[in-house]
């Protein structure tokens, strides 16, 4: 069903894929996700920040662990999906390399599979994170403070947990992974075109009604 990628777009597809692979490799050195906890006595320089890197958590985990008993939560420091993260993120650029060097007749197919696997991986990761966040706020042991109701921190968003304002979101590495997945999808789209014409300077001028300078 899928046809061979035309010669005209093959080069461009390659550039897009290389860019996606570079972003993925870069993201493995960056935090993917963060949470910031702020309260009257933990603000400014004292704000507690935890970041999820591929395979590990960083930040003042000691302080988080010291405060956790008050509400009876535990950081899932040894969660298997956290340990799997570097392998998963390491597999993505390999898949992309596969697509890059696939024979032209198969390249579209390989690209589609690559995109689907990566998108599924991202969704699975986000689901696991949200599940862990739910667990964190619901499967609590006996807490020191009384009358702290269960809670669910969002992946992206904020939460008021007693005196703490908790802010969560994608960190730079997370954005890079998302961008790499989008680029892969874009590469797949481009690979189906007969030809691709990047707008020339003259075309841009024409569209913007800029008179030519003589």
């Amino acid at each position, binding site marked *: 069903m899928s046809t061979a990628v035309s010669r005209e777009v093959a080069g461009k597809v390659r550039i897009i894929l290389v860019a996606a692979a570079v972003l993925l490799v870069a993201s493995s050195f960056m935090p993917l996700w963060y949470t910031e906890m702020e309260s009257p006595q*933990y603000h400014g320089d*004292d704000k507690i920040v935890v970041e999820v890197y591929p395979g590990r958590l960083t930040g*003042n985990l*000691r*302080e988080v662990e*010291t405060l956790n008993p*008050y509400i009876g939560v535990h950081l899932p420091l040894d969660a298997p999906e956290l340990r799997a993260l570097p392998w998963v993120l390491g597999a993505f650029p390999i898949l992309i390399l596969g697509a890059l060097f696939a024979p032209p007749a198969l390249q579209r197919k390989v690209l589609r599979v690559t995109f689907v696997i990566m998108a599924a991986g991202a969704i699975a990761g986000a689901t696991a994170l949200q599940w862990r966040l739910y667990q964190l706020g619901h499967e609590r042991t006996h807490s*020191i*403070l009384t009358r702290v109701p269960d809670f669910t921190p969002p992946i992206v968003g904020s939460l008021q947990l007693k005196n703490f304002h908790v802010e969560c979101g994608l960190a730079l590495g997370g954005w890079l992974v998302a961008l790499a997945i989008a680029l892969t999808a874009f590469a797949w789209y481009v690979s189906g075109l007969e030809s691709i014409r990047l707008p020339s300077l003259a075309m841009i001028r024409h569209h913007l009604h800029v008179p030519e300078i003589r």
Partner: protein
Amino acid sequence: MRSRFYSGLFLSIMIAAAVALSACKGSTGQKEGIDDLARRVYVPVGKWDKYYAFLSGGQGGNVLVFGIPSGRLIASIPVFEPRAQYGYAIPGTPSYEMLKSTGPLWGDTHHPAISETNGDYDGRWLFINDKANTRVARIDLTHFETVKIARIPNFQSAHGTAVVPPDTKYLIVDGEFRAEPDPAKGVNVAAYVAGMAFLDPITLETRFEVLVPGNCDINDASKDGRWAFATNYNTEKGLNIEEMIRNDEDAISAIDIPAAEEAIRKGEFVTMGGTKVIDPAKTSKKVLYLVPVPKNPHGCDVSPDGKYVVASGKLSPTVTVIDISKIDKVKNLHDAIVAQPEVGMGPLHTTWDGRGNAYTSLFIDSQIVKWNVAKAVAGDPDYIVDRIDVHYNPGHTYAAMGRTRHPSGDYLLSLNKLSKDMFIPVGPTMPESQELIDISGHKMKMLLNFPAESEPHDAAIMRVSDLAPKVVQVDQPVANAVAEGQSRVERVGPHEVNVYMTAIRSRFGLDSFTVKEGDSVHVTITNIETVRDMTHGFAVEDYGINLALDPGQTRTVTFIADKPGTHWYYCTWFCSALHLEMRGRMLVEAAGQKEPQKEARK
């Protein structure tokens, strides 16, 4: 007749009303002025003061730290007196050994001196003397903690204390009282000496001493590091007050530091008390110049431009201005004196604004007088710029960044000896009175009066922006730190036990530990907190022990478990919602106790 009476009454009422009205107006004007002054010293919540003012604590043996311009007490640094609150110098601690090995557990601090690099305060150390026991201490300003104490050999009473610019080559300390250098051999009036000690600023070891006739009072050094100066009273070498004030002239001792170093190199010294001592009468090159000044001078201060050293007259209403460059050039040292302006009664100390003005405290007049140095030197009779009343009897006065090459010229502190009616009564022992004066304009303005416990003598005022970035708030663990999960008890001898514990909200690493009566117990605790301001204490009931452990710090205390039974230990620094629960038990089994008590648990 009657109408005349009424018209007279009417007139009187009108006049009274007019007077009252104008008085009201006057007081309104005054009130606006007060609002304005209040704004100058108000530091909004969460904002910082502009300056640290380090004040010697006098008989308290400590150093007090105030914020300027707010006058708020920020810290008290114990130096020569134990302070259990900070776990400082309580028996069984290293700081106790440091203090005890140098003399009594009390001292009398007078003159704080901040270390300098390139002629400006570098904020590494603060030095402080102990007048009572001839000691000097170094405070590490990264921690605001006393780290070194040393006794100065041969002399009695360490008074004037200053650093030698531009890079703190020496700490200079005056040995004030005249006494025999070797008291162990008994009283020997003929051998009495006094002089100046030159100390290594890090080890506080006395590198050498220079004997000076009479008593060394206050000191300072020239900005280029060539000269060390001290006011020198009692050149009569008298033993009572009548003898001490007999002559009309005393001196400023000017010690030529390179000449003294050369004398040491050439071996022109005697060794006394393990220290090289220079007798200036016996060196090949002149080491000591005695510049004559009116009798019994007090303050000794070098101007920021390094041109002059001035002696404040005390008994003479003058300040003697000496041209430093002339000291080793003139035949008659009277000729090094370039001005002797009359400033008022009882001039004690002089400080600077960096704009060519000097500020001298007048003890008897209860004033600070501002005078222009260039005008005084030029013989212009109009050298007095302004005077301001202070309350009462000022001793030292110190302008912000006053001993650097660049005084900032905005604030001046007057450290007054008496407070009388200044504060709410607290019994016959009265708080000491400090006054903050705005010196940024032509006229001085009184801003604030704030109390301190007795008794600050002198101050050193340093910019917060220069020091605050260097101050540590959370320490990194040291080599002997107890790591998490490593709390344990080790019996290392038949009567010796080592206890290792962590401390973090809200428990000690051990809920209890057991020792035997008579054991020598070493308790080492590491505060494994990683956030600032989370200090924990460790107090043991009826054992006189309290440690203070700042985040990351490890402290050890050693004691004999001589009281059997259960002794709860607990955290003394309020740390968390479970602070009260942060405790444990030291179980001391009695010597004759056969079987340890079984825990009764529900």
